[in-house]
């Protein structure tokens, strides 16, 4: 999107301020019941029997939440996800082991659609076969894909003149390998739906409340997915929460999303707030003291500051007043806390036949498989994938959180990160700095910033010495026949730059050598960006700024404006946003940290992939089975190596402890043989006792003897080698005595 002239006029007008509101969603009860029979085990429960108290079981939809408590409506025993449609006696829940079921406990099904994981169930360990969400066996899911609903964010509106209408646009819904063939909308509690069988219905309400809207999206291949979104209707007679302070309002590219801090008294403190309740922070906006629509990214949702779920509370009280502090955390936070079983998906040539393989595997297919079959994310929020079509041979992610797995899949291969915008929509975008320079003109230019659009000062960081001296990048291009071609590239070239560390990027998914060269150049330029950070405090109500989707802004810094004569004219994108509302004026001020797009990136140079030589030696013969080493006691050896041996004695070492001689081995080099014995001497210069009963003869081939006259070797004795005769002219004599330890 780009800001229109009238929108810029609004953002540059005087007397901008806002009234903030908070709605903490209170889920509607769909059915109440009691547990008929306690499951045989608390482990891996997927099916419970119930006795109906109130409600209609056909109103229960997958993704709703089951509360289990010791009192009606309670959840003290735990919560579970509704896995599939209920029957008149059974409620089917996502496999779980944490609820302590008790006889007759209370069951309450609510229309609370949380982000849930769907654990797979291993059915054949040896062949790595599993079912999704406990019992969904693979049939054709990787050939005929399910559609992905894109319905837009949650809506909140004021009831004026008796009604309020919301226009939805689900035309962005998509499906891999097929087309969207139909939509069927339903909105319990609404007054009317027009265009309920189209992608763009209008839903009207005439009463305040917290509602749910469903769109059943059908693909031409016959697959169906039900998308769910919340709608909130309020009125002056039934105001949302107004008595609170916004203590923090922060969006971060690095953190992957948004969060808000809220301190509340009265209304919130008194309200029965369900743990981790969905909440929507929104505003009524005024420009020149007249109410108007604040420029925003999503039409119909311009009033929304943030959507998320409440995290832990901190309650304080004194003699006068009690207050509660809590955080509103966007989807990213919860994805970082939701564990997931390992992911594995490989490219298959031909028709996929298991959950573990898929044809023409891409990052997007891996992301879809994880989010659709392992979680409820694609049902409860919009998701925008990378659009990258490069093939991969396989993906393997060990057990971790959803966020860590998604990031590993996308960032480690194509530098795409998961990020959640203020509306709660999940985006997978390649880092802005790695968008090829020639393609950046395709990124929407939100506006050209003028001096009147920021106040006080522009603080920008200028880097004058390079941070990275070389980027060494590598990866493979996977072909449709599952073969791969490796590529390497160095940027800025063969020689490292003057300053900086080495940076490596490997295991990338690539399209060609040229693409890798370009990517290496972009990486190098990014890491050496001379203006990596520019902080502006905006003069207007810039709610339109977000981290996702990617938008450009243009800024010109005149040479005469800065003490360093810095002449900057270029494009920026947002890396961090801090919003704060001034209590005295109700003006929401945005402090925005931008990063400048690198303007120059020279492609890296192709680095030859080394040839791996084939082994030149033929494979050796097969050896007979090794019988294994004989079992011998611990032993040590004393060895004499005598060059130019002669008749006489040669001293040996002194024994530091008592030992027993085990064997003697000896051989000669040259000559014919040598006759010898070994003595043990209590005094080194005095003849002692021979170990061998008779002198041994060591020929060239060697001798081993264990016929000892006395094998004992007392402590502090000396060993002494006696050569008594030589035959021929030996040039070397080697004797080894083996003893106990």
């Amino acid at each position, binding site marked *: 999107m780009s800001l229109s002239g009238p929108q810029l006029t609004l953002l540059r007008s*005087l007397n901008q*301020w806002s009234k903030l509101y908070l709605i903490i969603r209170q889920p509607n009860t769909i059915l109440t019941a009691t547990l008929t029979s306690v499951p045989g085990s608390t482990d891996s429960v997927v099916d419970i029997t119930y006795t109906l108290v109130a409600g209609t079981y056909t109103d229960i939809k997958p993704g709703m939440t089951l509360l289990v408590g010791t009192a009606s409506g309670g959840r003290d025993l735990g919560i579970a996800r509704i896995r599939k449609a209920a029957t008149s006696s059974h409620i089917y829940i996502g496999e779980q082991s944490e609820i302590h079921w008790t006889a007759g406990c209370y069951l309450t099904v609510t229309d609370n659609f949380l982000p849930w994981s769907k654990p797979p169930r291993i059915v054949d360990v040896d062949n790595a076969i599993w079912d999704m969400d406990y019992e969904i066996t693979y049939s054709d899911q990787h050939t005929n894909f399910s559609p992905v609903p894109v319905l837009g964010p949650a809506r909140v509106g004021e009831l004026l003149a008796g009604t309020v209408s919301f226009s939805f646009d689900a035309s962005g819904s998509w499906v891999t390998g097929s087309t969207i063939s139909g939509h069927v909308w339903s909105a319990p509690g609404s007054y009317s739906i027009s265009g309920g069988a189209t992608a763009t219905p209008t839903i009207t309400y005439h009463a305040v409340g917290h509602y749910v809207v469903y769109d059943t999206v059908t693909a031409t291949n016959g697959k169906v997915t039900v998308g769910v979104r919340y709608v909130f209707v309020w009125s002056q007679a039934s105001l949302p929460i107004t008595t609170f302070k916004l203590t923090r309002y922060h969006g971060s590219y690095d953190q992957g999303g948004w969060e808000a801090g809220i301190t509340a008294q009265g209304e919130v403190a008194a309200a029965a707030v369900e743990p981790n309740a969905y909440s929507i922070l929104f505003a009524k906006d005024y420009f020149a003291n007249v109410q108007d629509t604040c420029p925003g990214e999503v039409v119909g949702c311009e009033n929304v500051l943030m959507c998320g779920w409440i995290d832990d509370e901190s309650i304080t009280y004194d003699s006068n007043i009690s207050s509660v502090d809590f955080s509103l955390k966007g989807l990213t936070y919860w994805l970082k806390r939701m564990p997931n079983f390992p992911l594995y998906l490989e490219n298959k040539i031909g028709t996929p036949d298991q959950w573990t393989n898929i044809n023409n595997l891409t990052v997007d297919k891996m992301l879809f498989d994880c989010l659709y079959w392992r979680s409820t994310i694609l049902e409860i929020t919009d998701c925008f994938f990378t659009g990258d079509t490069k093939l991969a041979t396989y993906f393997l992610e060990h057990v971790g959180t959803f966020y860590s797995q998604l990031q590993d899949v996308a960032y480690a291969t194509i530098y795409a990160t998961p990020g959640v915008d203020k509306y709660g929509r999940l985006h997978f975008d390649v880092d802005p700095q790695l968008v090829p320079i020639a393609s950046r003109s395709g990124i929407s230019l939100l506006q050209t910033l003028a*001096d009147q659009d*920021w106040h006080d000062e522009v603080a920008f960081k200028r880097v004058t010495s390079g941070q990275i001296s070389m980027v060494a990048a590598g990866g493979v291009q996977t072909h449709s026949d599952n073969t791969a071609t490796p590529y390497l590239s160095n940027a800025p070239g063969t020689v490292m730059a003057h300053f900086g560390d080495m940076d490596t990027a490997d295991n990338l998914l690539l399209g060609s050598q040229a693409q890798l060269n370009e990517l290496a150049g972009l990486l190098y330029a990014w890491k050496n960006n001379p203006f990596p950070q520019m902080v502006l405090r905006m003069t207007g109500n810039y709610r339109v700024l977000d981290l996702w989707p990617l938008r450009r802004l243009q800024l010109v810094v005149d040479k005469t404006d800065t003490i360093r004569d810095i002449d900057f004219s270029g494009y920026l994108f947002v890396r961090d946003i801090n919003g704060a509302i001034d209590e*005295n*004026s109700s003006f929401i001020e945005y402090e925005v940290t931008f990063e400048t797009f690198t303007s120059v990136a020279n492609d890296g140079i192709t680095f030859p992939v080394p040839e791996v030589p084939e082994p030149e030696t033929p494979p050796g013969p097969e050896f007979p089975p090794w019988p294994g080493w004989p079992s011998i006691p611990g032993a040590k050896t004393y060895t004499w190596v005598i060059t130019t041996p002669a008749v006489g004695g040669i001293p040996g070492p002194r024994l530091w402890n008592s030992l027993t001689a085990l064997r003697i081995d000896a051989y000669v080099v040259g000559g014919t043989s040598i006759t010898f014995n070994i003595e043990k001497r209590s005094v080194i210069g005095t003849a002692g006792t021979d170990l061998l009963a008779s002198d041994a003869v060591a020929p060239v081939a060697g001798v081993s003897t264990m016929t000892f006259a006395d094998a004992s070797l007392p402590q502090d004795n000396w060993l002494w080698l006696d050569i008594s005769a030589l035959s021929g002219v030996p040039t070397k004599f080697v004797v080894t005595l083996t003893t106990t330890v």
Partner: protein
Amino acid sequence: MTIPTTFAIGATVGGLVTLNSLGVVDPKSSFTPYTVTFRKGDGVLQGQGYSAATWHWDIIPASQRATLRAYITGLSGALVIRMPNNEGVWHQYDCVMDWMEAEEDQYATRTMDLLLKFSHLVIDEP
């Protein structure tokens, strides 16, 4: 539509009536066009936030005070007023009126220095 140039008050726009018609004398008024300002990059001062105003009576009879008090029985509440801005231009505003937080200086049947504060002024005109 031309806005009358008389001080007025009402719970709603439809209920707007002049102070004179209520038997209340016109106050001395002040108008604060901006509650926050900052210097923009082009050097021009920018005024943001809501406009605010005050009505002040040096002395007001108890009966007139009671008439005004009937509009806001608590400390603060929403209502509609009509008054001039600093340029002498008259507007109708939705606003929040704060009754005096400080101790009122009441003498016999009169109140001295009654000050009413108006904030979050929203122009509300047909």
